């Protein structure tokens, strides 16, 4: 019985996430269009292009599935599926309202980071299996980038855990009942910024999206994919972004806590605000180069995240001592 309930719950969550993610692509196109003095999609499903994601999905499904002759068949097909599945798995541990989590682990934060860092396998497998120099260059770049940015990501993730005293998401939410973690004087804001930048680098978003740089390496590691497999890369990236926005709103902005409205509504508002902020950053900045990216990580982000972590530990000890 519990098995069937769990199955139903996970099916509903899966469907909801994929549906929301499809409409997040519509939101991005409209939002970026308005920022560039133009209208986004508007013809399919007038007047605002509501049906555009469905039209895109139908188009991509109906395309011919081309596998290059010299590509490694098994790995070629495995990579996009891996990316989508692993990104979706991260959702299993995130609370959606104040009381409902699909899988309530007491080490929820740790599991989330573990699944988040498995994505890199899909990225460089697709680059290798495509048998294409552009894909190889881009997947090497992105493997280096993702693995490097995990260090500040983890350290800045640990700051709310230390301030709350546990790795469980429910405890972290409960610990923010008085004031949100972002309002802590130096620790909260800096660790929020570091976490945001590191997650942007992890999901290959601007200004760190060198691996899909369309002006240098045309489409990067997804260059040889056509049809629905290409859509999987795209969807996987947006699912990861949605998970990251949800995570940021839980860890730093208090999640479902808020004065009047129910928890589900607050968490939606906060997640959407963070997501829009990520879009805004993408469409305003130019791209950094690979060596500047690495320098930014190892020389600036990592030391600062160390210091912030130490400060957070110091603060908790001082508070416990008083």
């Amino acid at each position, binding site marked *: 019985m519990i098995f069937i309930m769990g199955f139903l719950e996970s099916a509903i969550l899966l469907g909801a996430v994929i549906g929301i993610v499809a409409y997040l692509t519509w939101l991005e196109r409209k939002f970026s269009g*308005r*920022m560039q*003095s133009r209208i986004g999609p508007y013809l399919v499903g007038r007047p605002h292009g509501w049906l555009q994601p469905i039209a895109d999905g139908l188009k991509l499904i109906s395309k011919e599935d081309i596998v290059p002759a010299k590509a490694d068949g098994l790995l070629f097909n495995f990579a996009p599926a891996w990316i989508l599945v692993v990104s979706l798995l991260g959702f299993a541990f995130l609370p959606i309202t104040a009381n409902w989590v699909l899988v309530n682990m007491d080490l929820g934060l740790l599991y989330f980071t573990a699944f988040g860092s498995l994505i890199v396998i899909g990225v460089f497998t697709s680059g290798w299996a495509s048998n294409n120099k552009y894909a190889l260059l881009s997947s090497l770049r992105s493997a280096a980038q993702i693995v490097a940015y995990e260090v500040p990501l983890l350290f800045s993730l640990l700051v709310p855990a230390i301030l709350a005293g546990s790795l469980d998401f429910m405890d972290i939410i409960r610990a923010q009942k008085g004031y949100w973690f972002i309002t802590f004087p130096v620790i909260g804001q800096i660790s929020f910024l570091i976490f945001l930048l590191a997650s942007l680098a992890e999901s290959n978003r601007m200004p760190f999206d060198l691996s899909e740089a369309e002006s240098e390496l045309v489409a990067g590691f997804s260059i040889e994919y056509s049809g629905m497999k290409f859509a999987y890369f795209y969807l996987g990236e947006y699912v990861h972004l949605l998970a990251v926005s949800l995570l940021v709103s839980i860890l730093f902005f208090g999640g479902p806590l808020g004065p009047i409205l129910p928890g589900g509504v607050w968490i939606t508002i906060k997640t959407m605000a963070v997501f829009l902020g990520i879009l*805004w950053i993408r469409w*305003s*900045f130019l791209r950094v180069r690979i060596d500047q990216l690495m320098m930014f990580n190892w020389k600036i982000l990592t030391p600062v995240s160390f210091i912030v972590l130490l400060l957070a530990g110091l603060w908790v000890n001082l508070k416990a001592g008083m």
Partner: protein
Amino acid sequence: MAKKVSKIRLVEAIIFSLWITLKNLFKRPVTVQYPIERRPIPERWRAGTFALTTDKETGEENCIGCKLCERICPSDIIIVELEKHSGRGWAKSFVLDLQACIQCELCVQVCPTDAIVMLRGMATPVARREDFILDKKKLMENEELFEAAWATGIKLQKLHEPQKAGEKS
């Protein structure tokens, strides 16, 4: 220009870029949704198709078959045949291939009788390539299609006459 920029200016620049995109988010987009809305065509627009005109008073064709437009066209798209009767020349046939036209207006500038004009309208698409090759009948019909452009032959020639200085159209 290799001076060091202070850290405050760097942060300020980042915030300024974000501010510019945010400002544009709330302004009206500049897109004109063609073909539902169309932009106004300016007065001197000339890139429509061509037409052969007729004299307003007598109703005769203006073209005297002098073949000057055929001579001057850089892309060689005009072919004219001359016949003389009734005291003046006429164009027996006049074929203009619109596919290769580079819209240079030299044929209009050369014409002594304002016979060939470019039209002030948007070029209309056709369904077959053969429809781009305009014969004399189609060119005479085109006169009803749009109004003629601002620059006709005689007007352009008047602009160039060195004696009539100061006369502007």
